[in-house]
């Protein structure tokens, strides 16, 4: 399957022949880092190979369009409930630099004792099934070819079906997975004996398949009331999962700690979070670090969330990380919208690129408060472990509520999570292996009569599915109504008919978001804002963010609602875009004539940056083609412009109206046209307006030949002038 950048992902092609689809590789892939990497005008320290196709950061347009890629893997978490919609989101995220796509599972899959098949719709995530994994892996294979970098696909090996899910992931080319039996025991109410026994098998399978393991310790940050006080325990949770994984045979390079800076401003974030990050990396030297961003304290304000996430990412640069995970800035208010996945990835890469080479300039101090705090946290963690041992081991400690207590250990507030080792989902299902116990398969952990050092355990019957994938049994669908074909019927019909609707999450959901400031007290302002949204035609308007500007002067609201309109592409009045002329052609035509142009910034305006860039040879302006440009400066009256044009015999007048108020820019354009007509100059004179508030349609409506807005280049203006002047010469 091959993607074309100009064409949408063909979901029918993704779903075709999945029964025969095999992943082309297994295991995790890190970025290929490059030291002293020249990218455009810069030599960068902490980068990796460039992408073949991408969308650069917005400011890149001022830096030659470069899109350097940071050295660490970037994660985005995707889950709309419909994998077929998620695939498009994955493609967008990959173009913005994400190479670790984490798929969240549907609510409740942890408690399903066995595998799910088919493609049922999920809630807050998707049901992980073989078909869904295959379709996603197939799409990601095509997307990674399109962007030119391997993409790691990731989901969860937790719940009461961990070993089966691990087999599924190994067979289907999933590259990374969360696996941490403590998560099951503490947060999912699953029996802890079952969790740990299952985990050993799952980890063995993951290790042999090269699947990178992330642990679940970060969940304590998200659960504890004061997340920074749970830090000594986080060392312990990381240690239990890490030591358990090593004992099962998982190599250190496949073990990643999932860690989150625990605070957010107005807490003194760096002072609290940096020592913790350093302390953890010292104790767990040799393991990988997946730096997650903070979700515990983000509210509905996306700007606030973004600033916190930028600071989290800065800590990754200061303390080191192998994977930078991203949280969408809207996670505090709704299920992530697809463009916010992109926003989250961009906040991380913008931060990481801005901090390129930072540790060549600075160093963390080796004495003083940082070291004292690091040592204190490590000692508190050791004391925590000592208490587990003293209380009779892990199960006894969980039963006694040692975990997720809100006190900073050894402080105890008596509010930890308490679980009974003999209770929970799957209790009583742990069975002693008999002396003749056997499992004739590869990647099996523990006592096994088929385990031999000299031969594979699956030799007796010609190989297990891990050795011979042709033995994998593929189930397509089990539910005739709840499946991807049913869900795609309408979207694909609409796509074929050229019908468009707005969306944020799922095809055609119609959701839009508007920002409304209302100058009144909060209660009145909110009611008014909702009414305004209704009058805009939004169905079910709902305030998703409210920010007080002043108790009496007003509040600003973001309101989501459904815009129930369909647009037919064929009915759209698409503006005709003319391609710019070749540079050589412009120059040849212009230099053969002595063409004078008069230009100025008009109105009560002292800004002239935009006009310089269009005229000045240094900025790639039109002078370089041989136009004789006469810039009269700023705040120039229209009359004077035309006086100069007459005196010089100019063939074009360019006016710039950059910052405007009260429609001054429109008045200036109309006046230029009217005065040129009065003086009889208009038929032979080309009039062009430019400015941030200007576009071609508006300028034409105000009597100009054309107008140029943001993103205009000298070549674009020169092309227009040549075409317009040719037309005049031809008449």
């Amino acid at each position, binding site marked *: 399957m091959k993607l074309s950048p100009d064409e949408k992902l063909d979901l029918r092609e993704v779903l075709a022949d999945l029964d025969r689809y095999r992943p082309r590789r297994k295991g995790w892939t890190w970025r290929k880092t490059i030291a002293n990497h020249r990218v455009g005008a810069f030599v960068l320290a902490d980068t990796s190979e460039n992408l073949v196709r991408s969308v650069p950061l917005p400011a890149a347009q001022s830096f030659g369009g470069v899109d350097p890629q940071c050295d660490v893997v970037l994660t985005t978490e995707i889950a709309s409930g419909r994998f077929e919609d998620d695939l498009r989101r994955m493609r967008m995220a990959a173009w913005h630099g994400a190479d670790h796509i984490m798929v969240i599972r549907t609510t409740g899959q942890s408690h399903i004792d066995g595998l799910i098949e088919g493609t049922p719709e999920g809630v807050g995530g998707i049901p992980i099934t073989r078909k869904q994994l295959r379709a996603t892996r197939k799409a990601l294979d095509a997307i990674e070819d399109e962007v030119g970098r391997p993409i790691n696909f990731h989901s969860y090996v937790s719940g009461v079906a961990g070993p089966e899910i691990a087999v599924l992931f190994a067979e289907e080319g999933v590259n990374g997975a969360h696996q941490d039996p403590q998560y099951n025991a503490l947060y999912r109410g699953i029996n802890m004996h079952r969790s740990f026994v299952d985990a050993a098998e799952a980890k063995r399978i993951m290790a042999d398949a090269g699947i990178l393991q992330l642990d679940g310790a970060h969940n304590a940050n998200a659960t504890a009331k004061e997340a920074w006080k749970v830090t000594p325990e986080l*060392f312990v949770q990381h240690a239990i999962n890490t030591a358990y994984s090593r004992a099962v045979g998982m190599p250190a390079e496949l073990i990643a700690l999932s860690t989150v800076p625990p605070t957010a401003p107005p807490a003194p974030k760096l002072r609290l979070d940096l020592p913790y990050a350093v302390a953890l990396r010292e104790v767990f030297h040799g393991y990988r670090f997946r730096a997650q961003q903070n979700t515990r304290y983000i509210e509905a304000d996306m700007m606030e969330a973004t600033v916190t996430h930028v600071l989290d990412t800065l800590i990754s640069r200061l303390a080191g990380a192998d994977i930078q995970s991203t949280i969408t800035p809207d996670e505090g208010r709704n299920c992530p919208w697809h463009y916010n996945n992109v926003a989250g990835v961009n906040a991380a890469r913008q931060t990481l690129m801005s901090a390129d080479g930072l540790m060549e300039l600075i160093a963390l101090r080796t004495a003083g408060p940082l070291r004292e705090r690091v040592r204190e946290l490590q000692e508190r963690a050791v004391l925590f*472990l000592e208490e587990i041992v003293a209380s009779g081991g892990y199960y006894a400690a969980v039963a*006694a509520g040692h975990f997720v207590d809100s006190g900073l250990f050894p*402080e105890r507030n008596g509010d930890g999570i308490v679980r009974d080792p003999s209770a929970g989902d799957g209790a009583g299902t742990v069975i002693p292996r008999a002396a003749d116990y056997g*499992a004739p398969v590869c990647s099996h952990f523990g006592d096994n009569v088929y385990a031999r050092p000299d031969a594979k355990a699956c030799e*007796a019957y010609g190989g297990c599915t891990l050795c011979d994938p042709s033995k994998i049994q593929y189930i397509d669908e089990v539910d005739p109504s709840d499946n991807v074909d049913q869900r795609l019927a309408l979207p694909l019909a609409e796509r074929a008919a050229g019908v468009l609707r707005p969306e944020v999450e799922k095809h055609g959901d119609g959701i839009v978001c508007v920002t409304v400031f209302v100058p009144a007290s909060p209660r009145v302002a909110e009611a008014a804002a909702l009414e305004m949204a209704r009058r805009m035609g939004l169905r079910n308007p709902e305030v998703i963010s409210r920010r007080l500007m002043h108790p009496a002067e007003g509040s600003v609201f973001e309101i989501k609602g459904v815009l129930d309109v369909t647009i037919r592409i064929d009915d759209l009045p698409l503006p005709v875009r003319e391609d710019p002329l070749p540079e050589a052609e412009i120059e040849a035509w212009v230099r053969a004539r002595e063409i004078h142009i008069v230009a100025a910034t008009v109105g009560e305006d002292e800004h002239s940056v935009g006009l310089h860039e269009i005229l000045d040879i240094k900025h790639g302006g039109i002078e370089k083609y041989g136009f004789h440009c006469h810039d009269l400066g700023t705040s120039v009256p229209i009359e004077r412009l035309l006086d100069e044009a007459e005196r010089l015999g100019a063939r074009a007048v360019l006016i710039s109206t950059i910052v405007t108020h009260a429609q001054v820019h429109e008045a200036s354009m109309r006046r230029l046209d009217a005065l040129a007509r009065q003086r009889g100059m208009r038929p032979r004179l080309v009039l062009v307006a430019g400015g941030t508030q200007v576009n071609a349609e508006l300028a034409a409506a105000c009597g100009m030949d054309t107008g140029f807005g943001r993103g205009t280049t000298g070549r674009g203006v020169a092309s227009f002038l040549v075409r317009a002047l040719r037309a005049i010469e031809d008449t």
Partner: protein
Amino acid sequence: MPCIERPDDFESRRAHLRALSDEELHARFWQLAQEIVGPLIEEARTHTTPSIERSVLLRMGFSSTEAKALVGRMHEQRLLGHGAGRLVLELAQRQGISVRDAGVALLQGRFWEELGR
């Protein structure tokens, strides 16, 4: 068991750690962690679960629904301690049929009286 409450007694509790170098402290950390996971690993080495057994049958070429049905019935008959994979493989060897055919026969209700003997 009631959860304990106590004030932060870090300064007194840490007395025995104070003299350790950073390296010694880290070594103590890992030694304690290994001590804690030791019994957990031992339990995993000597026990199995329905999910482990289903994962074995998946690897032997059975679908998730087939594995669930087979392991469910073996669990009811208290046979899982021998290993679902072993039961199916030995049946196949005794009958001179493929592993897959042995599993399908069991799904059809045949040969159950022979298992685990």
